[in-house]
């Protein structure tokens, strides 16, 4: 295992110390329980937006804390959801009385821990609304199973709900918006290589030198299928097809396209992926009105990418364009 770390057990703590040192003044990092808030939290009268999950997906979530996006991020151990006491403490720290939106990625652990935390917070008098993000079309959806995983749409929901909260909209409204974003977004990812969880020390899965995993999750969970390596253009088609079919996205739609790196893929390759996404959507007369190309929701050092499409309307576009000032996403500020 080759990593720039000291002690595998101390990765999250030391990275948080680095975040605290790098972003003092913008972010407040709290330890034991671990959570990150805007330095100026709670923001009086404003609904707070909180998210969290296992670490190892940076910049998600800590890198998205700041004006116009998250009020708090709650990092668990690497690939392990945070515990309810962490989420509770963060919820209380950012609540100004206007309530707190929990944006939760759909993994059993995340859902259960956030649910427990929300119950505790409500018992403490905090108004909490929780929205579960489940945009990963690689997983078959069913009411009898855990359902789809939450992936790229989380970034978009955090940005858009953060903007709505900043604009003064009430909790129920921001929660409805969050469900709307989730409903209009679809994602799928793939991996060229595995990641290595620090305290495990060996790759989560083994892929041959000529193999790739299609439909991978962001924790190295196995995907839909393992196939032979293909050119980038063919890979894009494999990802985009199920995404387009699922919502479905249709000719005339306006979308936001996120081409996301898994952590170990260089930017030059992500632009080659974006090129093909733009070509294929162009052929289908789907207009990419906004885009994002880079590493936003990662799986440690995994090489690979995911694609997320969000169907835009005027309201979503306007909220997307609103100022945001976080370490991981910034414009208009």
């Amino acid at each position: 295992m080759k990593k720039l770390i000291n002690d595998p057990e101390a990765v999250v703590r030391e990275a948080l110390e680095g975040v605290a040192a790098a972003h003092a003044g913008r972010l407040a990092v709290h330890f034991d329980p671990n959570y990150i808030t805007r330095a100026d939290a709670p923001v009086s009268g404003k609904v707070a937006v909180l998210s969290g999950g296992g670490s190892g997906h940076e910049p998600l979530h800590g890198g998205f804390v700041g004006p116009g996006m998250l009020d708090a991020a709650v990092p668990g151990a690497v690939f392990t959801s945070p515990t309810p006491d962490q989420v509770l403490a963060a919820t209380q720290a950012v609540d100004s009385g206007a309530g707190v939106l929990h944006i939760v990625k759909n993994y059993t652990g995340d859902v259960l821990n956030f649910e427990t935390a929300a119950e505790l917070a409500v018992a403490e008098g905090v108004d909490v609304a929780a929205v579960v993000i489940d945009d990963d079309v690689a997983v078959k959806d069913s009411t009898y199973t855990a359902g789809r995983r939450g992936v790229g749409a989380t970034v978009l929901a955090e940005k858009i709900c953060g903007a709505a909260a900043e604009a003064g909209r009430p909790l129920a409204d921001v929660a409805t918006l969050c469900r709307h974003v989730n409903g209009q977004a679809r994602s799928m990812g793939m991996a060229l290589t595995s990641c290595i969880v620090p305290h495990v020390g060996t790759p989560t899965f083994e892929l041959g030198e000529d193999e790739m995993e299609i439909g991978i999750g962001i924790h190295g969970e196995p995907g839909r299928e393992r196939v032979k390596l293909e050119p980038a253009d063919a890979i894009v088609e494999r990802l985009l097809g199920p995404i387009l079919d699922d919502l479905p996205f249709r000719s005339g739609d306006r979308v936001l396209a996120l081409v996301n790196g898994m952590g170990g893929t260089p930017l030059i390759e992500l632009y080659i992926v974006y090129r093909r996404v733009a070509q294929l959507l162009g052929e289908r007369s789907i207009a990419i009105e906004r885009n994002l190309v880079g590493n936003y929701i990662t799986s440690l050092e995994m090489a690979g990418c995911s694609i997320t499409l969000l169907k835009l309307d005027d309201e979503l576009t306007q909220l997307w364009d609103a100022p945001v000032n976080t370490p991981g996403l910034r414009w208009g500020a």
Partner: protein
Amino acid sequence: MAIGTPEVVDWVRLSAAALEDERDRLNRLDADIGDGDHGANMARGFTAAAERLAAAAPETPAAALRTVGMTLLSTVGGAAGPLYGSFFIGLAGGLGDAAEVDAATWSAALTQAVAGVVRRGKAELGDKTMVDALTPAAETLEAAAGNGAAFGAALAGSAAAAETGAEATTPLVARKGRASYLGERSAGHQDPGATSSALLLRIAAETWGARDE
């Protein structure tokens, strides 16, 4: 037999030791159909719980079990944390302020605890989760307690039922938890959470059963 607070503490202490021993096996089971951390999660949580009980002696079995539940909640994370948290908080709720535990009170508590897990996780029997071990264990214990069986024997039967239930998860296709993303590919592997549940109940039978002779 008299199962009081010290025996409950013993159970947790010995469970922590057993989970440390079984850490790798549970991790490997979880690696096959999940993310490979169930052993680490459980060992971390129970070690913390045992330490907390060693540091501050609780007054009643229920108080001890509630401490365990709260500790698991704040140290385990993942799916297992809230589920085992609910389980132990459920056990505590079922025991109330009783100073001692017998087959009847334990059976009632276990039934309540399993209901808590089901309420939280919404898994049904056959979804390939810890519920597949816990539910038969509670049912077997209830039947034995109803028949007036000795507590030790009842516990042993309950542990055996949990083990059978855990083994029976192997052919199943997971419908809950991380393994469900695998769909058909989850069949052929024993569920790690069901395995750890059976382990906990086995340790209870061994720890408390010995007292019962």
